[in-house]
Every structure is written in C-alpha cells, then in structure tokens.
C-alpha cells in the first residue's frame, strides 16, 4: 500500500513527555496527510491512485439520502431517550459517512458483525430501524433475525464480535463461498485482546474478513492516545495484512476503500484493516457527559468536516440534486421519525413467561422446573383476585 509506506517513513512525533490527555489540534492536519480522501470537506472531488470510484448522480443522491435518514433516525432515538421511552441510546452522529460508505460496499451474501452503534450499517442491510430500539428500550437483547439480513446482533462486550466475524469468515473460506465479512469496532476496542486474537486468526487462516475500525477519537472519555502509540491502521502490518486509513467523514472514500477491501477478501487475498478517521459528535451514549473531557472547540473543528454537509455541497454545486429532491427527503425524514416514534411507544413489554424462553435450544430440566414454579406463583395472584 502506498499509503502505508509513506506513513511508515514519517518521523515519529516529538515531545513524548507531553501530557497524553491533552488533545492536540495540530494532530488533525498530520492525520489528513495519511488519509484516503475522495471528497474534501469543501465538497471537492479528488482523485486517489488506488481507490478510484465513479458513482452515478443517482448513487450519490442515494448515499446522501441514506446519511440524512440515518441521522434523522438517530436524532429521533436520542429524543425518545430524553422522553423516557428508551433507557439508553448510543448515537452515531458524525459517523454517518463511515457507516453508509462501508455499508453500501457490501454484497447481499456478505455478513456484518457490528458493535452497538452501527445504525447506519443496519440501515444499509435493510434491518428495520425500529428493530434496533428494542434492546435500548429494554424489551429484548436483539430483536432481529441475524440471518435474514446477514447483520449480526449488536455486541456490547467490546471486541468480542471481531472473533465471531473471523470464525464466520473462516467458514466462508471452508465453504468456498464468494462472500466476505465486515467486522466493526472502535478505537477503544483496538486495545482488547479479542481484537488482537482476531487479527492473528484471520491472518493465519487467510480469512475473508475486513476489519472496519471507526476511530471516532474517543472511547467514552479516553482519547485514542490512551489506546495506542501508533496510528491504528499500522497495526495490521505486524499481523501480515494491509491497513489503510481513510477519511471517515468522506462517504465516497469509505465506499471505495471498503469495496476494494471486500473484493480483496472475496478473491482469497485475506484480511484487511480499514481505520476510518472520524469523530463522534455527540456523547458516547445518552448517559455520558462529554463536557467533562473535551473542549467545545474540538467539536466545532469537526463540524467543518461534517460528512453530510460536504456531499450536499457537491450535489448542489454540480447540479446533481434540486430543491424538490431535498424537500422530498425532508418529508421522508419526518415520516421515518414519526414511524419510529409510534413504533417505540407501541412496543409491548415482553410477556412474563419470556423469562423462560430461548435459554436453551434443546430444553433444560432446571428451566422447566423454574418455569412451572413461576407459572404457579403468578397464577396464585389470579386465583386470589378471583376469590375477592
């Protein structure tokens, strides 16, 4: 990879004694020089020698639509949490390009292993967004059939899913199938042993898996510098596969690089690591208070790189979308928000007896015993009420 080799020759950053928690605004331009970028923050198309892409106007509008609807869905979920309809929400605000770009690179029979923030990828996979809310409302731990959209359940334990992704990819290779796996994780997750083990396994077995790290700069309150001393994408080299850093706020670059990486994997060339350099604009979750650990200036800086804005600039300047398009999308957003709101409020609590369902596939004597006891206990109230 040219990107990798130029980066490798860069001198190491000086000033090792500096406080590692202090955010370094100067870091941004430096990061930029390593980024694969196809659409600048000003909405200009730029070429990249390795990752060319030529989307039609319709495709560009489609990517824009996906990002806008995903952002709207996310905002609605945040609101619903504030209104007490959801216990928690993990917002993707700012990460739309990373998710839509990578998500739209997938083929139908590819398989995705997400963390808990991949609402945009779920959208690309055709998972009904209302299904994503059940676990945040507390009515289930998943709520969709992973196999009907090839989109696995959200994974809360950091890094675990990268191993499932690798194993699944090993299975694809065994089957001789023409598919690949896309595994998502964060910069914080890169410190987990499971992620390291998944790199080892995928390299050793040449598994068709693409690791997509959304480096949104923060793991709750900890900056990336608390997880790593080298740029994350460079880790791949030590495991024997390529790593590349892409502008995570550039939907075209994310699309192009993920497409190439998935194609590499599908054609038997093994794993690849993509580090999408992006930013979490909101709080980690609705329980988080980012004002305790980061400055408003930092967010303002990243707002100038807003993934949606820059594609809108391109669409408008090139005359690829007219006012009617934007107005129609606005209506569609409103309708989506309403549908989500209504669906959440109508979401029933699970039945009491659901406690005893699905713990085992083949049944279990203890579960049977406890189910019977609980049913009898519950029934005793009904009997008592009837007795009055």
């Amino acid at each position, binding site marked *: 990879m040219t990107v990798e080799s130029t980066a490798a020759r860069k001198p190491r950053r000086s000033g090792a004694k500096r406080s590692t928690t202090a955010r370094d605004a100067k870091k941004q331009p430096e990061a930029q020089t390593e980024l694969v970028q196809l659409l600048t923050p000003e909405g200009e198309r730029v070429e990249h020698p390795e990752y060319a892409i030529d989307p039609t106007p319709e495709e560009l509008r489609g990517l824009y639509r996906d990002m806008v609807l995903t952002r709207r869905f996310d905002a609605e979920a945040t609101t619903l949490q504030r209104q007490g309809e959801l216990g928690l929400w993990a917002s993707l605000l700012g990460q739309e390009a990373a998710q839509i770009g990578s998500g739209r690179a997938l083929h139908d029979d590819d398989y995705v292993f997400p963390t808990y923030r991949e609402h945009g990828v779920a959208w690309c996979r055709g998972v009904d967004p209302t299904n994503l809310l059940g676990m945040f409302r507390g009515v289930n731990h998943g709520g969709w059939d992973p196999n009907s959209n090839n989109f696995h359940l959200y994974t809360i334990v950091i890094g675990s899913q990268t191993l*499932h992704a690798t194993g699944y990819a090993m299975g694809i290779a065994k089957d001789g199938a023409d598919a690949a796996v896309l595994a998502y994780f964060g910069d914080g997750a890169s410190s987990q*042993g499971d992620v390291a083990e998944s790199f080892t396994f995928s390299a050793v077995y040449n598994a068709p898996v693409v690791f997509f790290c959304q480096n949104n700069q923060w793991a709750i309150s900890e900056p990336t510098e608390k997880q790593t001393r080298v740029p994350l994408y460079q880790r791949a080299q030590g495991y024997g596969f390529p790593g590349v850093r892409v502008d995570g706020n550039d939907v075209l670059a994310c699309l192009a690089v993920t497409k190439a990486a998935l194609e590499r994997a599908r054609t038997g060339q093994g794993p690849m690591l993509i580090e999408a350099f992006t930013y979490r604009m909101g709080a980690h979750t609705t329980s988080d208070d980012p004002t305790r650990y980061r400055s408003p200036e930092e967010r303002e800086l990243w707002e100038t790189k807003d993934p949606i804005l820059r594609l809108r600039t391109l669409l408008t300047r090139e005359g690829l979308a007219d006012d009617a398009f934007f107005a129609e999308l606005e209506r569609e957003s409103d309708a989506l928000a309403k549908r989500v709101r209504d669906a959440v409020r109508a979401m029933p609590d699970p039945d009491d007896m659901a406690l005893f369902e699905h713990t085992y596939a083949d049944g279990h004597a203890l579960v049977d015993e406890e189910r019977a006891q609980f049913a009898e206990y519950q029934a005793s109230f009904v009997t008592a009420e009837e007795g009055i």
Partner: protein
Amino acid sequence: MAAEKMSLSKAINASLRTALESDPKVLIMGEDVGKLGGVFRVTDGLQKDFGEDRVIDTPLAESGIVGTAIGLALRGYRPVVEIQFDGFVFPAYDQIVTQLAKMHARSLGKVKLPVVVRIPYGGGIGAVEHHSESPEALFAHVAGLKVISPANASDAYWMLQQAIGSDDPVIYFEPKRRYHDKSEVDTAAIPGPLHAARVVRPGADLTLAAYGPMVKVALDAAAAAAEEGKSIEVVDLRSMSPIDFDTIQRSVERTGRLVVVHEAPVFLGTGSEIAARITERCFYHLEAPVLRVGGFHSPYPPSRLEDEYLPGLDRVLDAVDRALAY
C-alpha cells in the same frame, strides 16, 4: 465389533472420529490437536485421516479458539474445541459466558450454537499449578450452557456424541486422571438421555452422589463400607447442568441419607446446590443433613499435597460414618 474394551481417552478419540465421519460440518479445533494429537493424545490420528481443514491446530489463544468457533457455528459448522487444561480456560471464559451461552436467547431462538468445549479437568496426576482444577460450578452457574462429565469409557463415547449432536453449547469435562481407565464401550448401543443420572451401585443405607473422577472413589468407598456391613448406593450424576435431581431424590427417599463428593471446592459448589435442593425435596425423608466432601477453599495445592486436598477413600468414609451416626 460393536462392544470393545477401551480406555476413556480412546473412547473420546473414537467418538470424535465417528462424529467427523458422520457429519462434514464437525470440526476439531485447539492447540496441538493436529500432528501431536493433543497433549493427552486424545485427538491422535484424527488430523492424519481428516486433514488440516477438519482438525485444526489453532494459534495459542483461548478466547480466539472459542470466539472463532462461535463464528464457525454461526456459519453452520459444529466445532468441538479442546482447551488444553482446566486452568487455561479462563482467557476463553469471557467468550463462553458472555457470547456462547447467551446468543441463542439474545436472538430469541434464531441462532443456534452447537459448540462443544472439551476440558480435561481435575487433579491426581502430579501436575504443576493450573493443571488440576475443577471449575465446573463456574460454568454450571451460567444459564445457556450445559455441563457434563463422563466417568467411564462408555459414557465418554456416548455423551460426547450426544453433546456434538446438541444444538446447545456443551462444556464437556474430561476426568484426566481416568483417561487410561478401561471399560466396555458398545458403539452400537442406544444411549440413555444425556442429562440423566445413573445408579451405578444399589444400596439401602446411604446415597453417595459423585461425578467424573470421583465416581471411582465413591464406588471404592461403597465397597469398603460393604465390608463393614453398610449398604451404600452410588449415583453417577453425569451432568452438572442440568442436574438430574429426580434420580437423586428417588435414591434418597430409599436411603434417607446423602453425601455428595467432588474434587472442586465445597464452598458454593455443585454439592451445595444438591444439598439445598434435596433438603427441599426430601426434608421428611432425610435422617441426616446432606454432607459434602470436596476440595478446600484454597488454591489447588502443589502436587505433593494433592492427596490431602482431593477427597480420598478415608474422607469419603468419614463423611459416610458421620451421616450414619445421626
């Protein structure tokens, strides 16, 4: 040649071979399981006959072994993974507890994870630390897992077949100090239910319940007690999750006394659960409190001390005497 006398480890090997032959989706995974045949040679010859794609030497990473086995199971495979020794399962404990055990429930039954985790466990072989532990209660406590342990070659063969056939994740504890004990295995038999306990010696005065490596000790204790005119019934539990309380209950209703024996520490162990349940179920049949014999609340000791730590004939017989004295 349906019935054949073989060692417990040979029976597991034969069982794995049968599974590999009868279902192309079955895979063996673990450290050193290939050319070496595992550190206990349990997988001996399997890679030679089924190839590196079916009998897979993995990187030395336990979380990776179980985590990738989960992914393979999601893709339709039935992995049987080997953890080299009991004390080394803990790097994989996270994957087993947070992922393997729960995915079926989280998916509301849509996802099945037919993964078997084989763990050679228990002491008595003079090993260094982390090679002699009995962590079964830590797994039995977790909803979503099934936990079993054979005590003889026939069960070793059949219970593993049944575990591989199960759509639930099964933790299969192998009593490593019994690996070389031989007994009759009828590979054409129709096995009983996987999670049923079995009365392996009938008796009238007291029930000894044990599993895995301690079944032999319990049988020896019953034989010794018989010389003193005591009639001891021995129940082989075979399964620690679920536990077949019905069989224990029926036995205790006959004998009126129960002593549970295992190598694992007594505190909060399998025996505690059995004592509590049987007391609930058999309160009016019990002539004595349920007693437990097992390991101490200490790290598994250096091997020169393991005979003191492990319940032997004398400690079991002492408990029998105490129960009979009530």
